[in-house]
């Protein structure tokens, strides 16, 4: 929708002027002007889209009610118009709902749900009503009989395009022979040029909905097209799921934060999202803390400084008596000395613990003020840093190379600590002086940003910047290189010694009110590893039923299907399925038929724009035994390939829902599903080919050998010999074949006999075989390589090995352990 904004400082009159031409436009009016977006851009297509929307709705409605769908579609010519009737045996729609379902755009039960369903936005069927009304001027006629109701409701309605409200023209009670169901009748300007798409849509719908009975009548059909049920099994019922933390956008998150009844962020996460329990929520919260508060850098306490820290604590405590003070100070220092590193909040905890203990032991009270003072004094000693101290030591180090001497005058505790970390994180080739210089600059930089109470709290970004700055300065002043890898390693090492702070996070209301904070939460949610969403919100067809669907509608020789495990994209789980039918009555010329489905709905148009088409074209189909001109693109041959994407949110390229968008995660799964099914096709085709070869061989031998016998008899002047024995042996044998493709050699053994065989195969090569794939051994014999292989091959089975050799390698194969008559060596 166009909006006009007046610009400050300009002629104020313009805004007023423009305002006069600005008015609200109804959604119906908007779509009236944009009907192509919904698939109603031409008469031919409009008809298909209307059928599609109505059938989709009917399938959803029947399944939801647990009824096996029985859907009837009829198209008739009525003067200049076409009349479209769609009937289902669904649960029916109550009188009150009818106008809303059919006569109001964006009314639906599904838009807000995370659940797999055919329709989603509630646009489809009302758009069809709108299209019919715009082209023919006739109202939509709807008959519905709810289950258990004695009569049916008959309603004629149109949509008021100004208000997006249905307007009922006629409403009456009527009788209907169906016990329950809905019937919609639309008249529209249309044509049947898209007849093949229409029939294809019905047929494809029958493939992916083997539980549905469909019937299509249209003027071009002499007999109605009927698609019978292939199974009585309804698709598994789907469950609605809450959103997944990885799948929400910032706007949605803020809306959810505003709407929730939870008080704490933890409660919000656990209550509003799927797969978030106490533990996961805690992980998210810690990640949120790291972003919101930053993490505290911890520091080490050298043994030589313990006395100094102790003195500082003693000085900070007054009026507690010498023993208690001593016990308190030494207790703290002892704990510090035993720890590798400590940060500010940890020190506070230590002080509290020790204070409590000393209170118990001595009866003295260590109040908050005393504790605060002790913490401050001890921390000041731990992270003591006087930036002036570094200059002289820097020079000293540069002169004598003694890195550890940095804090000799006792005012810089940071540089030496950082030095150890940096030295370990950077490559050994770095000069000591450089590392020291860098550590010192980093110490100065961190100290400057140490913040309130010198807590050394940094977010990842801030720490990154500090490292960058120190590295840049080192490069500039020391004239040495300090590369990205070194910087990253130093950062990683520092980040590893930071700690998540225990501070209390803001409450939901605060987070909702501040966009930056909400964004920190969102980042934390995305970064945390969270279990993939549950998949019971999805209802895949399942590989058995995919195969059954194909079997039912296509008369082929071979069927294969594969259903992948669920994956997640943007918080929405999805499942990809693929099916292949091959041979039989399928047309063998031209490219294969590709059937695309999303949530059991056939995708009819925009095949070229669909991710699934792209994936199919990228696959090297020759590997799987299909012809593919040029080695890419649509393969050729008598095959039907179906791809089904089931998801709680199918990413379409446009509102008309014709093509799946190119999402890498989804494309990957489509490819894997296709390959899984195609592998079965390949082994079927291989087997078929080898059987065919064998048949051909039998044909040829069956012809040649009698001729040869006859000729032999002629030459020797004897009676023709009986060759039955020889023929029988030939037809029942073991064959060893070699296939050379470039540098790859495959040896295979096929056992056509009726018992297991264990041939001993020796392949003598003039070059050493590489990349041997199979259970064979290779022996070098004076420049010749003897490859030995003894596969055990059961009756009717096949075994193979492969290896790589340079082209023009000589082969000499020798097979023992099998009767010579039973052996065909073609190697």
């Amino acid at each position, binding site marked *: 929708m166009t909006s006009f904004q007046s610009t400050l400082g300009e002629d104020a009159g313009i805004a007023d002027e423009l305002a006069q031409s600005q008015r609200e436009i109804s959604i119906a009016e908007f779509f009236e002007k944009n009907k192509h977006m919904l698939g109603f851009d031409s008469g031919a297509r409009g008809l298909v889209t209307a059928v599609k929307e109505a059938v989709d709705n009917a399938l959803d409605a029947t399944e939801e009610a647990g009824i096996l769908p029985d859907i009837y579609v009829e198209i008739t010519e009525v003067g200049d118009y076409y009349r479209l009737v769609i009937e289902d045996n669904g649960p029916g729609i109550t009188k009150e709902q009818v106008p809303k379902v059919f006569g109001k755009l964006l009314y639906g039960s599904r838009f807000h749900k995370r659940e797999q369903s055919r329709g989603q936005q509630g646009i489809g069927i009302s758009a069809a009503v709108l299209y019919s009304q715009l082209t023919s001027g006739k109202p939509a006629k709807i008959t519905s009989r709810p289950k258990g109701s004695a009569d049916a409701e008959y309603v004629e309605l149109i949509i008021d395009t100004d208000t997006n409200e249905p307007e009922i023209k006629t409403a009456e009670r009527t009788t209907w022979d169906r016990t329950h169901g809905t019937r919609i009748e639309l008249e529209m300007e249309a044509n049947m040029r898209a007849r093949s798409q229409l029939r294809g849509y019905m047929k494809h719908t029958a493939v992916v909905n083997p539980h549905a009975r469909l019937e299509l009548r249209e003027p071009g059909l002499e007999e109605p097209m009927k698609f019978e049920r292939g199974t009585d099994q309804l698709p598994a019922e789907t469950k609605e799921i809450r959103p997944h933390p990885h799948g929400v956008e910032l706007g949605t998150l803020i809306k959810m934060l505003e709407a929730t009844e939870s008080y704490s962020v933890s409660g919000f996460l656990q209550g509003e999202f799927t797969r978030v329990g106490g533990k996961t929520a805690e992980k998210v919260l810690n990640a949120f803390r790291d972003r919101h508060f930053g993490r505290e850098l911890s520091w080490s306490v050298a043994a030589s400084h313990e006395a100094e820290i102790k003195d500082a604590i003693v000085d900070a405590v007054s009026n507690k008596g010498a023993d208690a003070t001593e016990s308190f100070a030494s207790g703290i220092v002892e704990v510090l000395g035993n720890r590798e590193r400590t940060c500010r909040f940890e020190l506070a905890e230590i002080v509290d613990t020790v204070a409590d203990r000393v209170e118990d032991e001595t009866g003295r009270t260590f109040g908050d003020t005393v504790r605060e003072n002790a913490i401050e004094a001890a921390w000041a000693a731990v992270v003591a840093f006087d930036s002036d101290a570094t200059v002289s030591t820097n020079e000293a180090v540069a002169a004598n190379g003694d890195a550890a001497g940095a804090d000799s005058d006792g005012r810089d505790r940071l540089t030496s600590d950082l030095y150890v970390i940096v030295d370990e994180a950077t490559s050994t080739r770095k000069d000591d002086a450089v590392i020291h210089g860098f550590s010192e600059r980093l110490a100065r930089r961190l100290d400057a940003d140490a913040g309130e109470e010198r807590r050394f709290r940094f977010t990842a970004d801030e720490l990154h910047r500090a490292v960058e700055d120190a590295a840049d300065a080192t490069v500039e002043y020391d004239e040495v290189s300090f590369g990205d890898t070194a910087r990253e390693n130093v950062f990683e090492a520092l980040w590893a010694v930071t700690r998540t702070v225990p501070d209390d996070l803001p409450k939901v209301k605060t987070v909702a009110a501040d966009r930056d904070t909400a964004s920190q939460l969102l980042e934390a949610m995305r970064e945390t590893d969270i279990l993939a969403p549950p998949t019971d919100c999805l209802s895949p067809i399942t590989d058995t039923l995919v195969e059954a669907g194909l079997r039912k509608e296509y008369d082929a020789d071979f069927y294969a299907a594969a259903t992948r495990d669920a994956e997640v994209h943007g918080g929405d789980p999805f499942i990809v399925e693929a099916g292949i039918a091959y041979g039989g009555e399928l047309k063998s010329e031209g490219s294969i038929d590709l059937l695309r489905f999303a949530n059991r709905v056939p995708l009819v148009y925009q095949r070229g724009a669909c991710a699934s088409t792209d994936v199919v074209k990228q696959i090297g189909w020759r590997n799987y035994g299909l012809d593919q001109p040029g080695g890419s693109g649509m393969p050729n041959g008598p095959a039907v390939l179906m791809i089904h994407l089931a998801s709680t949110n199918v990413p379409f390229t446009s509102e008309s829902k014709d093509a799946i968008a190119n999402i890498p995660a989804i494309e990957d799964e489509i490819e894997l599903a296709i390959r899984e099914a195609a592998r079965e096709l390949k082994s079927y085709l291989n087997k078929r080919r080898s059987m065919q070869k064998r048949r051909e061989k039998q044909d040829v031998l069956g012809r040649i050998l009698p001729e040869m016998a006859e000729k032999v008899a002629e030459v020797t002047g004897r009676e023709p010999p009986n*060759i039955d024995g020889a023929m029988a042996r030939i037809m029942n044998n073991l064959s060893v074949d070699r296939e050379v493709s470039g540098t790859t050699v495959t040896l295979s053994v096929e056992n056509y006999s009726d018992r297991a065989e264990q041939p001993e195969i020796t392949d003598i090569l003039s070059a050493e075989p590489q990349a041997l794939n199979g259970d064979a051994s290779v022996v070098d014999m004076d420049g010749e390589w003897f490859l030995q292989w003894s596969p055990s091959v059961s009756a009717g089975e096949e075994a193979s090995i492969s290896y790589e050799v340079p082209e023009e390698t000589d082969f000499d194969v020798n097979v023992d352990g099998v009767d010579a008559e039973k052996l065909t060596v*073609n190697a």
Partner: protein
Amino acid sequence: MSSETQNPNEDAREQLIDLAADFYDQFAGGKIPELTLPTRTKRNIEYDPDSGVWVYGDRTSTRSANSVRGARKLLKAVYTIDFLAQQLDEDRSSTLRELYYLSESWDNTEAHFSDQDESNQMIEDLEIVSEVTREDLHMRPEESGATLMGPLLLREQTRRGEREIHCQKDVGEGGYQIPNNPDTIEFLDHEIDFVLCVETGGMRDRLIENGFDDDYNCLVVHLKGQPARATRRITKRLHDELGLPVVVFTDGDPWSYRIYGSVAYGSIKSAHLSEYLATPDAAFIGIQPEDIVEYDLPTDPLADSDINALESELSDPRFQTDYWTEQIELQLEIEKKAEQQALASRGLDFVTDTYLPERLDAMGVI
């Protein structure tokens, strides 16, 4: 492998029919017909110390009717046997090329040869298993056109009767043309000191023009490239029957060494006939890689295929001698090759006045 029996045609015919009978018996015994042959590859030839030539080793390959390819081969074999037997019966002969075209007339299309290599190979197969030479099967190659020139008197049995021919006095500049079956020749008299086999026509003509055959009492055999069987056979007979030393003069490249190899040691494809064709005592004059260096001959660089050929010769059992290993390795090192005619760079008479006499002297031939 004898052609000296009473009725050589009948003998050869019998051998062929026996082959067919083997197939018959295999059929009748319920077995799948097959034909076992020595494998004809470089790796399956071995030195036979008794005869001093290279013959096929123990490795065999089997053509069995068990596969389509094998069955077709055997069917063709039977048709070929039928044809050859008939040809012997009628005492006629045909060329290898004729056999290829003739197969087109056979009633069974499966038995037609697909190319001449196939029919040539079939004859080789049959000659190996039947132990009858191609000549005795009355199969001729195309005339190779190889010639002799030198002080030799011989008698040839031609279709028009016996002819006595002196290979210097009775022939023109072109010399005496070696017939396809040199076993029809009888040596009568000679004044030859040694036999000189020359690879190229140009060099052969140079030697004749310079009167080398006269001056040195030498029989010049023109090999015409890779020598035909008849050429190798007559060379062997000259050596064996007249006790003459044989020397081979070729270009200085790997392909020419193979020419020498097939004269001296026998070729891989006809190793079954080595005893009948090879002259193990034949010596190599040159051009040796050593000569290229010594005489500073104009050269061409070795092509990749030359290098491959040289390397393959290093692994060829026929060239596994110190002499050849040294020469080939030298050539690979200098990366050069030279033609016989390169000697002309030192003058047209250089080859006859200097090079050959020096080499022959060094080899102890003169």
